[in-house]
């Protein structure tokens, strides 16, 4: 591999890790939101002070 | 010896039994916004045993830890020996003895060494004499040079009481002092606690045995789900009532 190819590799890996993680976080967020919508008692519990 | 050894060096005059060394007003404890204890108001009188009853998880142990100033309460006020408990609690703690689920002893040290060690930490003037006196009192003098790890459950519990009394506390907190004891040990410890109260100490204990608590204590506080469900004079006639309060029916 030559220098330019390493450069491209660097950006692909860096951006891939960052945005891949963000994507997975966003998906988790949506899943949790759905879970909370399905179980309204979690957020609106009279016992929760 | 002409006089029975006392556990407290200077028994309080028995003519002031109404004094309350423990007072709580609207005491609450929350962890992460969840209430463990809520609006606990009760008093424990001097020269008497006060029993905290309630199902598992009612908050009895937490309350006892708050009274011992080991855990901070989050709302309300706690008054010990007439002083409100604020941040610095070391001087108050010096007047409190505590017996927990666990013996709080070093199993590799002998009974004597354990007592001398805790006596020294509390700044007792003559720890060795004090330890001897206490070992006599809890009937362990013959085993004073054996490691605590070799003791039976009943003996450990007696040594544990001796440890809690080493600095002559005026308030004794006992968390399930009868748990796992056989009948002879139970009677010994009952006698010890009663005698302590007679000598002028304030004793607060948690217990599961309702009948025993009513027999020993002067007042009973029933906790359920972190709140005081019922308080009243300990009277054998109230047995069923107290049991119903504990069950919440």
């Amino acid at each position, binding site marked *: 591999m030559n220098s330019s190819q390493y450069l491209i590799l*660097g950006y692909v890996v860096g951006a891939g890790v960052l945005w891949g993680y963000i994507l997975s976080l966003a998906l988790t967020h949506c899943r949790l939101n759905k879970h909370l919508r399905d179980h309204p008692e979690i957020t609106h519990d009279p016992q929760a002070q | 010896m002409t006089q029975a050894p006392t556990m407290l060096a200077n028994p309080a005059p028995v003519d002031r039994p109404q004094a309350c060394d423990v007072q709580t007003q609207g005491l609450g404890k929350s962890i992460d916004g969840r209430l463990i204890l809520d609006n606990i108001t009760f008093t424990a009188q001097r020269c008497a045993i006060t029993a905290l009853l309630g199902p598992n998880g009612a908050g009895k142990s937490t309350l006892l830890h708050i009274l011992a100033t080991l855990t901070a309460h989050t709302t309300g006020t706690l008054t010990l020996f007439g002083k409100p408990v604020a941040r610095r609690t070391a001087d108050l703690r010096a007047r409190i003895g505590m017996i927990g689920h666990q013996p709080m002893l070093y199993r590799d040290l002998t009974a004597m060494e354990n007592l001398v060690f805790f006596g020294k930490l509390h700044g007792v003037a003559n720890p060795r004499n004090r330890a001897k006196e206490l070992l006599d009192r809890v009937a362990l003098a013959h085993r004073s040079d054996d490691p605590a790890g070799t003791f039976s459950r009943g003996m450990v519990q007696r040594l544990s009481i001796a440890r809690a009394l080493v600095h002559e506390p005026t308030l004794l907190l006992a968390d399930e002092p009868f748990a796992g004891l056989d009948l002879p040990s139970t009677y010994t410890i009952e006698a010890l606690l009663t005698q302590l109260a007679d000598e002028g100490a304030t004793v607060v204990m948690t217990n599961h045995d309702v009948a025993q608590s009513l027999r020993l204590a002067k007042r009973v506080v029933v906790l359920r789900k972190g709140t005081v469900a019922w308080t009243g004079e300990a009277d054998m006639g109230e047995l069923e009532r107290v049991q119903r309060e504990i069950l919440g029916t």
Partner: protein
Amino acid sequence: MRLKSCRLTAGFWAITLAMFMAGVVMVFAYTPVEKTMGPVQKVFYLHLPVAINTFLACVVVFVASVGYLWKRTQAWDDLALAACKTAVLLCSVVLLTGMIWGRSAWGAWWTWSPRLTFSLLLWLLYVVYLVIRPAIESPQRRALVSAVYGLVAFLDVPLVYLSVKLMPQDIHPASIALEPQMKTTLLFWFLPVTLLNIGLIALGYAVQRKRTLIEQSRGKRSVHDTSTPLAGDAA
């Protein structure tokens, strides 16, 4: 209200992504090639801002840990955890880009140069934060131990820096004379990476808050069984 915050979030990520893209375009089309190291030197524009942002994330871990020790509320612990995950992620990117750079420039994926070693130790320091958490069962205890660790770890960072300087010096570019275009690109890159950092911590925090909420609701039935500190210690 809900829709508005939704739009704001979407807008935020759109801007961040757009700036990130613009940065990439700048790197490949605008900035000149460095003479001695060749094109691979351009990894630097991603590498350095991410490295600086790793520190910022560590600062957030520190602040949140102190916040927890002070206020003892779960929210601070959630923030510390989110920031710590971000710090580890960013540090991983620093390590990866650094390794790729090194492979191209010196022919080895890894050299024990002070700077790379420093990044590795920093990474380890914060990975341990994430690793020990599941080992502690009681949520309060977990938050407390984590907060103490987060505090001590942050104070440790300058010490790590000092210690790697004691290591035998290796080849590493001390400094590169930056041409104006290079400087512009580098400065520009701080924007998307910092936004990314903020977004990551915020999103991670939101996710963690919800997880905590669900976990707490599961434990609610046994609220009154929470062991008291001393009983917990005995276990």
